[in-house]
């Protein structure tokens, strides 16, 4: 068992629910080695998987410009919803 729960079932469910065709996966540095397994398993259900190479400092750090590549769904591991605070 991996140290952290990858929860591919939740990912697949969301892909089916949104009928996504192109999915971008974003992982924090410690989980980037799991990209191979995630890419393999998600590709099996017929979606194109793009792997975000860059930073993933938190849920505050969502990649920009993915829509230009036709990405329908971004799956971001290791974080939960970020509550943005205006001014701090």
């Amino acid at each position, binding site marked *: *068992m*991996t*140290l*952290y*729960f*990858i*929860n591919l079932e*939740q*990912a697949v469910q*969301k892909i089916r629910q*949104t009928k*996504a065709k192109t999915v971008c996966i974003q992982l924090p540095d410690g*989980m980037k080695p799991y990209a191979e397994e995630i890419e393999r398993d998600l590709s099996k259900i017929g979606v194109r998987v793009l792997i975000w190479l*860059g*930073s993933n*400092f*938190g*849920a*505050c*750090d*969502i990649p*920009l410009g*993915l*829509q230009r590549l036709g*990405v*329908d*769904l*971004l*799956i*971001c*591991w*290791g*974080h*939960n*919803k*970020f*509550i*943005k*605070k*205006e*001014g*701090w």
Partner: protein
Amino acid sequence: MEVLFIEAEYTRKVELCPEALEYLKQKNYRKIGLYASVQFVSKLENVKKQLQEHNIEIITSRPDRTSAVSQLLGCDNYRHSLNLAGQELAAVDAYLYIGDGKFHPLALVFVQKNSNVKKEVIVNDPIANRLFIVNETDVAVILNRYKSSLMKFLTARKIGIIITVKPGQEQFKPALELEKKFPDKKLFYFIDNNISFNQLENFPFIETWVNTACPRIGLDDQEKFVKGVINLNDALRAEEILRCWT
């Protein structure tokens, strides 16, 4: 585009290691501020039970940017970001963080940077099953540099304001408050995604910098700013902070 967050919870048991329990007992801590990173926050039942068994009261909160009670983010690193009432802050004997690494628990050290009383931050790492302490000595160099950056900011006239385009971190409007507060300074606004530290020196007319992106950049990356950097919240009350800095 839809976004799905998968928390990636820790898959093994989470509990306090014997060393941590012994330490809490030896220190006679009665009230503990309990926090954890997202991977551990949904698995704190055993920890809470252990603390209760040792008659240690738990004080916690949902910090500003988090979705869960007791969750700690690295950016919840200043006095008001924990959302703890003044009385609760005063009552905490020490903080206990559940998770690995120093990045998140150091937020609790930075929270106390302008406070006269410093509370210990105890880390129980469930992966290594060990205890370690983080405190101001871990960030002494950063805080010294930060203090001189504050002084530099007050006397500088040409200031570079750094704004990120990351939607979660972008603070353009709040940054404009600086114009009202410091009408005698000339403010230059710089836009970037990840901060390009190696570009800073290409703007030699800038005397010092203000960071408005992640508040950890102004602290942890202090050494990457040769001309100094402070965070937006501190810039807005720089004089007051310098006055009470111990």
